[in-house]
């Protein structure tokens, strides 16, 4: 597998669009999952924002400095696009507060445990859910989350700690030996 850095160099050096296409294919799932999480599962809006994210990434790739991984950098662009969209849409449609309730999403619950976990996740604040998503679903370190969201490191740790406390009860009920 060609490393991200090599593909980035090909895009920046010779405007290699097939290399950029490979980067999109490689990272589209993480970016779209992240935006679906932020948009409370409004997948159409999330995909529009994801498209804008990759176009902006294409334009800015020459300024990517590898201080963060490419995926973290992409999530940072996605987060900025979501914040702009939220600012525009807030009076009409509060993206933060919409809770997914449609049948298709309920059907994705593969077990009662997942269902309980989903209910427990709804009890978390938006920031706690975001921290949990980035840490456990995107595999980002505390430092990466702090950089991506422009939060102090202590805030990231506090959100994660509180979120885990809130999730502990439903998890313990399904796994009494822990």
């Amino acid at each position, binding site marked *: 597998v060609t490393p991200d850095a090599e593909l980035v160099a090909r895009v920046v050096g010779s*405007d290699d*669009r097939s290399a*950029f*296409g490979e980067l*999109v*294919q490689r990272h*589209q*799932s993480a970016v*779209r*999952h992240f935006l679906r999480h932020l948009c409370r599962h409004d997948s159409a809006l999330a*995909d529009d924002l*994801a*498209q804008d994210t*990759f*176009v*902006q*990434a*294409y*334009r*800015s790739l020459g*300024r*990517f400095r590898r201080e*963060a991984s490419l995926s973290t*950098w992409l999530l*940072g*662009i996605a987060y*900025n*696009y979501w914040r*702009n969209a939220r600012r525009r849409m807030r009076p009409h449609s509060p993206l933060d507060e919409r809770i997914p309730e449609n049948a298709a999403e309920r059907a994705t619950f593969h077990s009662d*445990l*997942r269902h309980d*976990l989903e209910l427990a996740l709804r009890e978390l604040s938006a920031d706690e859910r975001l921290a*949990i*998503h980035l840490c*456990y*679903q995107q*595999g980002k*370190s505390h430092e990466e989350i702090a*950089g*991506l969201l*422009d939060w102090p490191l202590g805030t990231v740790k506090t959100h994660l700690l509180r979120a*885990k406390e809130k*999730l*502990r009860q439903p*998890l313990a009920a399904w*796994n009494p030996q*822990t």
Partner: protein
Amino acid sequence: MNLPPDETRLAELLRQPPLPDDGFSARVAAVLPAPATSRSFRGVFITLGALAGGAIALTRIGSLGNLPGAVEQAFAPVAVELATPTLWLGLMAAAGSVAYALFAAGPRSTAQ
């Protein structure tokens, strides 16, 4: 990232299957900006303009040997005008605009 057992369990429960591409990459490819050729074309235009200007100037003055006299003659009225401060202001504004048009970056990045 190495996680303690209960955190590993949480990570397993929260894990989502990768989203299928479903034509997403193709949609992105379709809306990418056109190849950036403007910068190279700009260089060619500037070079051609400079060569054309030089050629016209040479035909007017006859040979390179006449250049110092021709320059002095051409710039004598300009030197008088340059003593006016408002002209300097105008020239600086024009130079700033040209510099911005030539060297400003593309759209502002929202990247971190």
